[in-house]
């Protein structure tokens, strides 16, 4: 039977007989004995009133006195973030949705840059100059891989669409069982 009533510890035989703080392995970090408060009752600092949207964990019963206002949620990623914040910090989906929103936010960022007439220089942003200075072989390998993958993709696409291939096996071909192997 669930109950919401607190147990009166005075009714429990032996309550607290071994509660020597010196035996508590978390000491000395906690210093319970010189704590002023045990709950949500400290002198709060002045309360900041944010001028932008600040998402709040549902594990907080109130907004903290001071909040960050770096980058308010916006666009599609912002909508996903608002939705994610309906779930608690112990919910895996909360975090996976936020990770997904981050990926979408990257695309939004590039689109916004382009809309402002600023082409993102992705190699420079990823430190290509440093790679050139300190890791020439690594850079060559990466560029080589990129060219290789590009060429393979190009060839694959050309073969698929072009008239050069006389026969494309259709689904019926694929579904037909292979002839039994000779014994």
């Amino acid at each position, binding site marked *: 039977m669930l109950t919401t009533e607190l147990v009166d510890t005075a009714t429990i035989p032996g309550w607290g007989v071994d509660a020597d703080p010196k035996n508590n*392995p978390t000491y000395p*970090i*906690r*210093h319970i004995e010189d*704590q*002023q*408060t*045990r*709950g*949500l009752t*400290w*002198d*709060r*600092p*002045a309360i*900041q009133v*944010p*001028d932008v949207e*600040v*998402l709040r*964990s549902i*594990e*907080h019963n109130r*907004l*903290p*006195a*001071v*909040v*960050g*206002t*770096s*980058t308010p*949620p916006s666009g599609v*990623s912002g909508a996903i*973030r608002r939705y994610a*914040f309906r779930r608690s*910090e112990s919910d*895996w989906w909360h*975090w*996976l949705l*936020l*990770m997904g*929103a*981050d*990926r979408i*936010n*990257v695309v*939004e*960022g590039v689109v916004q840059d382009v809309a402002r007439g600023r082409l993102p220089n992705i190699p*420079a942003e*990823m*430190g*290509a*100059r*440093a*790679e050139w*200075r*300190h*890791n020439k072989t*690594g850079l060559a390998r990466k560029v080589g891989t990129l060219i290789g993958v590009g060429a393979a993709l190009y060839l694959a696409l050309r073969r698929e669409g072009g008239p050069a291939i006389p026969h494309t096996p259709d689904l019926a071909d694929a579904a037909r069982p292979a002839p039994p192997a000779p014994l």
Partner: protein
Amino acid sequence: MPQIQHPEDAIVRVTRSCICGSDLHLYHGMVPDTRVGMTFGHEFCGTVEQVGTEVRNLKPGDHVLVPFNIACGKCHFCQQGLFGNCHESNAQATAVGGIFGYSHTAGGYDGGQAQYVRVPYADVGPTVIPDWMDHDDAVLLTDVVPTGYQAAEMGGIQPGDTVVVFGAGPVGLMAARSAWLFGAGRVIVIDHVDYRLEFARVFGPAEVYNVREIDDMVVFLKKQTDSLGADVCIDAVGGDAAGNAIQTLLGTKLKLEAGNAIALHWAINSVKKGGIVSIVGVYGPTGNIVPIGNVVNKGITIRANQASVKRLLPRLIEHVKAGLINPKAMITHRVPLADIADAYHIFSAKLDGCIKPVLLPNGQ
């Protein structure tokens, strides 16, 4: 330029900032809610430009080092010295306090890889840099020094203990150095990059081993410790580890767990029964595949936290003064802020012998 938004805010003009290993978790997209347009950087020092109406301890012109934690100094957790767990600085999550420039999961504050920063609760964290202190030492006291030191402290090291540190980045280096201060008898550092291990061998000073040359890390460490295991293992790696394909696929590539947890596996499995595993490596907040059964069966104590920088600063400042630790020796690169993309790449790809890059907003 940022604005004062709260009476306890200050605006600080940055004179030095650093790129940290944990910034790479943001850079590689492993920490959720890292929004486009946000400024990174939780390690910085600078000059106070402006203060809010309720700031008492700082005035314009003061040169301060700013701990990476944003802490109110008044809440239940700050009262316990848990400045890394403040309840009044992060709207988006309760598990972690506010951190400068560290995604919205850590509060959504812009960071110090910039010319100016808004610093909330300016009376609590920021500390005026003593006259005698080199500003290169000061900037490292904002995170890596206290984090490495707290890693050793949480390890509960007893005199003569064997301590294994996973990760030879700046935090691992400081953890190795600090382990001696707590009385360690033997300090072993594990990494996968030779130049970092060479650095650890001298700076620690520590015994060093390369992951890539060892077939089974746990068996190797057992053999090094009379088949018993180390007394204390410190995970100074976190989610960006190398050395295990499945972990890399799940955690780093697919991002289904909070990064690659192989260093933590090794720490749990190579510590002595009844030993202590201390974790300061950064893991994102999604699930982790961790050998919890072995934690139970071996009776291990796991201690972990973000460093409470403010709690540790007075002691660490004394240690720098006494020459017991020499943080600035870890700085290998000084880069103008304008070249930050290159600095991130050099640091991330572990090129050019990079241990710790410092960014200079004005180019000098």
